[in-house]
């Protein structure tokens, strides 16, 4: 069970990383969980909006505006998607 969760967590991270790489045009190796989109990955505020849109489409989610504002790092997106897809 624990192993399955770890695995799916890794898969999730890889999928999110791929979205970030595509949207922000950065190298995969800088997309670490701690990375902040605006401070570390050079995103402007519209980039983060588009990133959230891409995550919504990739995982078939609707992320409310209030929640979207808190999604500023790779880890926060990971945690949000994990919570939503488990529910």
């Amino acid at each position: 069970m624990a192993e399955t969760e770890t695995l799916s967590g890794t898969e999730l991270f890889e999928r999110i990383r791929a979205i970030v790489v595509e949207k922000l045009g950065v190298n995969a190796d800088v997309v670490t969980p701690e990375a902040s989109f605006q401070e570390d990955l050079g995103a402007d505020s519209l980039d983060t909006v588009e990133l959230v849109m891409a995550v919504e489409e990739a995982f078939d989610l609707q992320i409310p505006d209030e929640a979207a504002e808190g999604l500023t790092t790779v880890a926060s997106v990971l945690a949000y998607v994990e919570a939503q897809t488990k529910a």
Partner: protein
Amino acid sequence: MTVESPVALVTGASRGIGRSIAEAFAASGYRVALNYAQSEASAAEVVAGICSRGGDARAFRADVSSAADVTTLFGEVLTWTGQRLDVLVNNAGLTRDGLLARLSEEAWDTVLDTNLKGAFLCSKAAARPMLRQRSGCILNISSIVGLDGQLGQASYAASKAGLVGLTAALAKELASRNIRVNAVAPGFIDSDMTQALDEPLRRAMLERIPLSRFGEPSEVADLCVFLAARAPYVTGQVIRVDGGLHL
């Protein structure tokens, strides 16, 4: 008309200037989504007219002042167009005139909700496909009343001035993604709204218009098509269509 044809959504398109705008985009090769709030029969008539001339159009009911309605509207329109939206024309508008001392809170809210909040809600929904496309054009139908004011039209003037601010803010915010936002400010145009004015006021206005006539809805519509299709370097502008009334 092909699936590659650009798509325009016009709110409040069953009558008046909105109808003319929808017809002008259709005549210029756009697939046109017409929004209407109540006039289903008129909207169907506009659609039938466009289709009989070889165009492609469909009518969608929604009250643009309702966030839930706008969400449904964009869901339906984007399904119809295959997620494409090139032009949004925020035209839906109404008046509830009255002198300030007699202007009710309800009348104020109704006008601001439809004319200004409606444009905000539709622009927000349109930004999504336009950001994805990295292109788009939003046109806000303001009014000279929003620039010059008009006795007895405080709510209408405030809503139309609000559209000028919305235009400038969104033009700055969305420019980096090649989404242009402009406003058109009609003067006295022959439509249901101006035909409701009393005759002495109509005559008084005519005397002040340098071109000595009221405008035609098509003259507003043609500018909208020009701004959308032929003016790729124009954004954040408010353009008067008023026969020189401001001079």
